[in-house]
């Protein structure tokens, strides 16, 4: 076979080998560093929007339970604060979620109600908020207060942020009322057993 007739076969073989190697690398990388993917949807309600100044008879309640009826998720809610490392303290059982206690009360006329939970736990498996990447705009999130008030919110947006770049207004206490649900997402680093990103779902009160 002449070299002139050989080069197309060699070219094809080289391209094929390159693609095969790329495919293997992608597969191995995907297995070594799995991800929780979440696409951005909807428009994020701005925390800077002024809340109504009108006095309200109902000032809100400490949330005791979270329901995501469309996903058959029910989770107890416990008050949490900020740890010495500056990170939000999340309840250990992944089926329990934490309400940032310095923030707005559930059903409050102003401010952000922040509820966060583990997407998963090494010892106890998948968490209650693992459904956040698949929640759709319009789905309902319901908080039940410790005195029985039922506060309904409607999902309006979802975003994924690098943990260090969580928007500063996420924990806003003065703007328009909204509910923010937070869990982890993005690439999972098995060496340090941590995700790189946060998945944040925004919901507004149902009038």
């Amino acid at each position: 076979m002449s070299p002139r007739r050989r080069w197309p076969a060699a070219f094809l073989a080289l391209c094929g080998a390159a693609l095969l190697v790329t495919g293997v690398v992608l597969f191995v990388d995907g297995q070594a560093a799995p991800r929780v993917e979440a696409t951005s949807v909807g428009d994020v309600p701005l925390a800077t929007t002024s809340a109504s100044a009108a006095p309200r008879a109902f000032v809100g309640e400490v949330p005791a339970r979270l329901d995501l009826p469309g996903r058959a998720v029910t989770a107890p809610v416990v008050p949490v604060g900020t740890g010495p490392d500056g990170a939000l303290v999340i309840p250990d059982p992944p089926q329990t979620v934490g309400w940032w206690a310095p923030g707005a009360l559930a059903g409050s006329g102003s401010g952000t109600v922040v509820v966060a939970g583990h997407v998963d736990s090494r010892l106890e498996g998948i968490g209650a908020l693992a459904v956040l990447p698949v929640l759709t705009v319009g789905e309902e999130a319901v908080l039940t207060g410790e005195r029985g008030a039922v506060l309904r919110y409607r999902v309006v947006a979802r975003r994924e942020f690098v943990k260090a770049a969580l928007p500063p207004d996420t924990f806003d206490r003065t703007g328009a009322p909204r509910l923010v649900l937070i869990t982890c997402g993005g690439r999972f680093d098995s060496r340090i057993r941590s995700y790189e990103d946060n998945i944040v779902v925004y919901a507004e009160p149902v009038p």
Partner: protein
Amino acid sequence: MTTRSARLTAGTLLVAVALTGAAACSSGEQAPAAPTPGAVAPPNPGDATGQATDAARQAFGQANQGALALVALGGLGTDKGVGDQVKGLAPDVTSQGQALLDQIKQAATAQGVALGDQLDAQTQALVADLQSRSGQPFDTAWLQAANSLIEQARTAANTVLNDPNASAEAKAAARDALARLDALAAQVGSASSSAGASTPGSVNAGTGGQAAASSAESAPVLPLAVGGLGIVLIGGAAAWTRRSRSDA
């Protein structure tokens, strides 16, 4: 909500001090003031007597609400605080609020402005919000409110200090207030960190990797497609070579 009320009250407090100084030197040429929250119109509100101007009367009303909010915040902290941080700070907040209240009322009276003792709607909302809480949620919200109030007051004090039109008396008052506020801010900041009331910088909510693994299992499409195409091309090259040899 708590912080908005705090912002309103604290942010105007120092401005009110500045305006008080300005009003004392004013000629009183402005129109009589409209009623403002917390401020009761004097029996003879006309400025022809050289009494408080419209702006000063409004500032007195807002400053009065600021001091009332501080007293209310301190009182609530004393009554409902559970942690050492809030229990320790609340009496200071009450005494500083009461001292400011007395100072403002004295200055207002000197200029013929009578001040009420009723909390405005926003301060009432602040109190109602805090009263709905108990235990850790109360303490942390109380500390956040205190933090916010002090920060807003510091901003107001700096505004007065940087204002070229502010009187020397106003600047001196702002400097004095800023020194006290800095000390209080350090106390409250430290207490907030200890009580877990500071605003989080991150959320670490996953240690297992199961959620990621289940996502990865369901979608290895791209690696398989790329690798598959590579195998097809290599196969094509082999077929080409075989055919060329057989032709030869």
